[in-house]
Every structure is written in C-alpha cells, then in structure tokens.
C-alpha cells in the first residue's frame, strides 16, 4: 500500500468540522424521526375521532383531541381493555417470578455445586437452546388438555416455574464469575447450601436477576401465540389477544383501536423508562432480543 499524503492531519479548519458535526446530527435526527413516526402515528390516532384517522389532507396533530377514546376502550362492551390490562399484568408478573426463581436456582446448581452427571445435564441444557417451540407445543397442549387446564392461565404460567434453557445458561455463566470465597466462608460457618444461595449469592447477582426479570416480563407481555392457543373466554384475554379480537370484530373503530394499541404498549414504555440500563446491557452482553 502506498502512502500518498499524511492523512492524519489535525489542522483542518474548525468550520468544516462544524459542518461535519451538523451533517452527523441531521442524519441521526432524520433516521430517528423516521423510526419514531409509526409510534407518533399510533398515539395521535388514538386521540382522534374515528373519522379523522384517515383524513385527507393528512392531519399531523389531532384537533380536537379526543381523550374519550381511552375512557371508552377501558369499558368497551365485550372488550374490557382495563380487564385485559390487569390480565396482562397478572400473567407477565407470575411468569417473571417463576422464571427468576427457577432459573436462578438451577443456574446456581450448575455453576457452584458438584454432583455426578452435572456436565451431561448441562450439555442437554445447551442443546435445549436450539430446539424451537414448534416441535414441542402440540404434545404440551394435549397434556394440559388432558389435565383439564384449557381456558386457564395455568398452562401459560406453570412451565415458567421449571426454568428455561436460555436464562439457566445465562445465570450459570454469571454465577461462575462470582468469587467462591464468600460462599466458602459461609460454608465453614456452617450455613447450608440453601442459605448460602439465598443470603450470600443471590444479592451478588442482582443485576443479572433484573435483566432476566425485565426481558421475561417484556416477552410475556408480547406473547400472542400462547394465549391464542390456551384461552377461550374473551374476558380472560391479555392485551395483545384482546386487541386482536377487537380488531377482528370492530373493523371500523380506528380511534379506539389505536387507543387499545397505545394502552398495550404504554406499560412497557414505563418499564423501559425505569429499567433502561438493564435492557441495553442485557442486549449487549447476552444478545437477547425482543
């Protein structure tokens, strides 16, 4: 490779630097606005009267603002969005609790305790990561059906208390990086393994627990397939499924539909606002995706 000139010159005029900086920001702002547009459209459509959602010319700001869309959606006959909101919260919270408890415990078992067959079982766990749900869901459905649990949240929640491969793997890696001195000291003091896990180790891995909780909550909130398969009474639907049912039956009530979509999204925004750091870290460190 030939060197034509000295490329590492820092004596460029500050004006061109400023232009470059402005250009960078223009690119960033342009792309960001494009990305946020559907978002903006959802929210302003939720505040428009029905006939104004598709208006010509395009209405960029709702006028008048119609807050009633939300009030009406809350108690819509047959589609009680407030009830859906509660169902989603209840469902996502329980799955999160189950996942965090089980995956932390199992991950700790694999990372810190020695027992015959450990490596073999851990290999099975890693292999499990690659098995898509499509080869297991029919027999699991039939199993819950034979137990008479269709139409309830039990099939959707119960499995989470038995762990999942991905988070067990993540927790194991996390526990492995923890120093063993603390646990050993507690062991010498006569603490049993369960006390060590609960009192000594869990507080140490708190960030990992939060990452796990935040993503499990988000995924469960997003889940559509599970509720679609297992639930049949409309009043027991979570938000995603309720919104879907509303769209299918009330095909022209666009304002209310957008209010429902906004309501389905808003709680996750609040969660994100408070736990932003854990979302971003979770994605970067483990490759977790939404």
């Amino acid at each position, binding site marked *: 490779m030939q060197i034509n000139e000295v490329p590492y010159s820092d004596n460029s005029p500050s004006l061109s630097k400023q232009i470059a900086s402005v250009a960078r920001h223009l690119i960033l702002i342009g792309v960001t606005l494009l990305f946020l547009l559907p978002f903006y459209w959802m929210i302003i459509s939720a505040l428009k009267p029905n006939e104004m959602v598709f208006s010509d010319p395009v209405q960029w700001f709702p006028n008048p603002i119609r807050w009633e869309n939300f009030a009406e959606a809350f108690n819509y006959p047959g589609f009680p969005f407030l009830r859906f909101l509660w169902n989603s919260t209840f469902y996502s919270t329980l799955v999160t609790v189950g996942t965090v408890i089980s995956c932390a415990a199992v991950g700790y078992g694999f990372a810190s305790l020695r027992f015959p067959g450990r490596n073999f079982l851990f290999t099975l766990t890693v292999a499990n990561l690659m098995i898509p749900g*499509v080869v297991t869901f029919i*027999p699991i459905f039939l199993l819950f059906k034979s137990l008479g649990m269709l139409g309830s949240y039990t099939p959707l929640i119960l499995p989470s208390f038995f762990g999942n491969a991905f988070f067990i793997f993540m927790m194991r890696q996390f526990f492995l990086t923890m120093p063993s001195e603390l646990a050993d000291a507690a062991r010498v003091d006569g603490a049993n393994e369960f006390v060590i896990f609960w009192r000594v180790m869990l507080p140490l891995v708190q960030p990992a627990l939060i990452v796990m909780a935040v993503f499990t909550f988000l995924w469960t909130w997003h889940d559509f397939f599970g509720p679609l398969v297992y639930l049949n009474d409309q009043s027991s639907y979570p938000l995603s499924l309720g919104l879907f049912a509303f769209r299918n039956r009330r095909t022209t009530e666009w304002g209310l539909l957008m209010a429902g979509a906004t309501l389905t999204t808003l709680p996750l925004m609040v969660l994100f606002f408070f736990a932003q750091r854990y979302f971003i870290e979770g994605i970067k460190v483990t490759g977790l995706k939404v």
Partner: protein
Amino acid sequence: MLARNLPWLTMSKLKRREAVAGYVFILPWLISLLVFTLYPIITTLYLSFTNYTVVQPPVWVGLENYQTIFFNDPSIKPSVYNSVYYTLLSVPVGLILSLLLALVLNMRATGIGVYRTLFYLPSLVPPVAATIVFTVLFEARSGLINSFIRSFGLPAPAWFADPNWSKPGLVIMSLWGIGAQTLIFLAGLQDIPKSLLEAAEIDGANGAQKLWYITLPLLSNVILFNLVMNVIGSFQVFTQAVVIGGTTGNPMESTLMFMVHIYRNAFRYFKMGYASALSVLLFVVVMVVTLLIFRSARLWVFAEKDENA
C-alpha cells in the same frame, strides 16, 4: 439408580451432601427437561405418523401425513413460498440496515446515547399492536404512507389488500423492529480496538477500506450470530402474518406462512397428526439451514488467530 454410580459410593459425606443439594437445585429443570422437552419431542415425532383428531385415540398411518405434505396439500406450496420469500427478503435487508444503523450510531456526536435509546423504542411495541399500527399506516386509500407516495404523483400499491404487495409490506414492517439487532452490532463495533483503525488510517486507508478490511472482518462473528437468530425467527413468523391475513392468509393466501398453516391444522381443524408432521418438517428445515450457515461461516467468519501474526 444413583447408588449404583461408583463415584457416589466413594464420595465423602460432605461431597455427598453437596451433590444432594445440587440435585435439589436443578430438580425443577430436570422435570422440565423430561415433561416439556423430551416427552413432547418424542410425542410429536410419534404423532406425525398417526391420524389424530383429539376425539379418538391416534391411529398409526405410517408415512401418510408426509405423503400428504409432499403431494396432496394445496396450501403447502403457497405457505412454503411465502415463508421462504419472507425469510430471503427480511433477513438480508434487516441485517444490512441494522449494520448501517449501528455504524451511524457509533459516530461520535453529542447526545448519541439518546439516539441509541430512541432506536430501541419500537422494539418494545408488542407485535400485535405494531402490526395493527402498520395496517393503519399502509391503508390503501388514505393511509399515511400512500398519501405520501401519491403526493409525488406516483401510483400507490394497496399493500396488505394486494397479494403482490402484502409480503413486501410485512418485510418493511419487520424492519421497524431492528433496534435490538442494531444494539448487538453496536456492542460489536465498540469492541473493535481503536488502535487497529488508527493504524490503518496512518497507512492511508480511507473510510471504505477501513470498513471492508477491518470493521467487517472483526464484526463477522456478530453478523453470524444475528444471521442465525434472524433466519430461525423469520422461518417461524406467526403473529404479524395472522394479524394481517388471519388463518387463511388473506389476501389470496399471500400471507399464509408455514407456521400459520401448522397452527390452523392443529387448532382449527384439530388434525394433530398432520400438524405434527408439518412441525417435524419445519424443525428439520430450520436445523439444516442453521447447520449450513455455520458450515459456510468457515469461509467468511474471521478467525482471529490466523491473521493476527
């Protein structure tokens, strides 16, 4: 059974206590492996050779279900075509765009953290809600996107109402959610040692050369990761397709994805045996494709030890 294990007998009391605790800790997962993984996989395989409509016990029919898949099911062709079309379009476009976006977000600019956060926001929107928002944006007559296209005097497609445009519509929609993927690329970009890029600069490399000879090779393992995850995900796309086209793949089976076809056979027609055969097939295809990608990785994923000398 455990007592027959030789190490178990020769263990000290302390070690045995640790082992017992270990089994207690992993017990839930052991149950899960048996009940929610091993048993279902074997059962799916078994059911795929049976005729099972839930009301009566399964009847063994040998390879009949697989024969039906390959010769007698008129919905197979469109559903395979749609899923392959969707995967071949959404995966590469999504990869390239998220990589470009990550390069943009890796620039040095004040307030860059805010931009990074904003790009991730769309990924939080639940798929059902996001799809419904896009049905409004893509509305044929007076949706925002078509109003925009028409303002240039161009003909606007009917998107989800037109069988030729429904899948491109789905692909465009999928691009809205590339925020998480972008963050993974961004993390990869930030791991690239600055010293390498600076050294290249001193040697007279321009921006494109730095990208091609340094950034992309060092990012190739992240590209591999995103590629594999996206292929697996897009072969199994379900929610967006069902919200757009229902279980019949409206319009004209153009959004009938393979996963939707499995779903309706299992839970609409209650053909559990046939749906199991379809599931096995999808599983095999996903596995083979994943394996092929990993094989090909030897050719294009940069292995550090070879060239660092």
